[in-house]
């Protein structure tokens, strides 16, 4: 008699999937680091060119930081437990929402100077004003976050084997956020909100330092 045992083959964990999950974890780090670098670059430009940000510029920094905090939450969770699909979707969803708002803010600033012949305001890099670059960055950030959400199965980080990189990424982001908070406080002083185009660091003026 033939043995009627049914052989069941369990699906082996495909190595390609593990590779793309690892890629997803790295990309999440890179996304946070790029946003951190942009925020740091904006601060460096502010001091190097002695050009305080406009109110809309400060708002763009705020939205960029909010967009970075989404993937940063994924990175933070991966430090101590495997990231669930819910964690992953929440993090990247936060990024999409904040990036869309950031693009609207930068777009508004572009529209303020859209008239042909208008000189625009602030520094120019490779033929485009910084707020135009910011608009493009927000569009790219939205697209990247949307692609990560589309490929959730392939890219959600399952676990994390580089705690040092993760801590460095979060540490750098925290440092830049703190520096931005101090700078904005110095610009705003004890007023309710920033003026449209701040002339200088109001807090120093209010304290009688400058």
């Amino acid at each position, binding site marked *: 008699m033939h043995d009627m045992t049914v052989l069941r083959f369990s699906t082996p964990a495909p190595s390609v999937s593990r590779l793309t999950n690892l890629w997803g974890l790295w990309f999440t780090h890179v996304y946070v680091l790029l946003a951190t670098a942009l925020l740091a670059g904006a601060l460096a430009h502010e001091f190097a060119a002695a050009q305080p940000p406009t*109110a*809309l510029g*400060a*708002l763009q920094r*705020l*939205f960029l*930081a*909010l967009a970075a*905090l*989404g993937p*940063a*939450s994924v990175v*933070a969770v991966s430090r*101590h437990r495997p990231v669930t699909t*819910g*964690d992953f979707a*929440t993090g990247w969803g*936060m990024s999409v*929402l*904040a990036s869309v*708002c950031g693009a*609207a*803010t930068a777009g*508004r600033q572009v*529209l*303020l100077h*859209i*008239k*042909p012949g208008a000189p625009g305001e602030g520094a120019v890099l490779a033929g485009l004003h910084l707020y135009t670059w910011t608009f493009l960055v927000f569009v790219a950030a939205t697209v990247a976050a949307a692609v990560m959400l589309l490929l959730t199965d392939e890219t959600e980080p399952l676990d994390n084997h580089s705690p040092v990189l993760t801590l460095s990424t*979060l540490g750098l*982001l*925290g440092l830049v*956020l*703190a520096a*931005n*908070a101090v700078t*904005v*406080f110095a*610009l*705003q002083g004890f007023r*309710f*909100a*920033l003026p*449209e185009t701040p002339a200088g660091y109001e807090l120093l003026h209010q304290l009688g330092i400058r």
Partner: protein
Amino acid sequence: METVLFLLLLLIWCALLARWSRPRILLLWGLCLTGAVLLLSSRLTTPLDLSF
């Protein structure tokens, strides 16, 4: 207002490190986003000159 929102960002960052639960972090983040959007809407008073 901007200072408060940036401090809220720092609080969210601390909450991430302190392993706060997802709903609490999302609540703080949503509060900050709402504040920023309200601030943005208050900055839209200057009419655009689109008379090409």
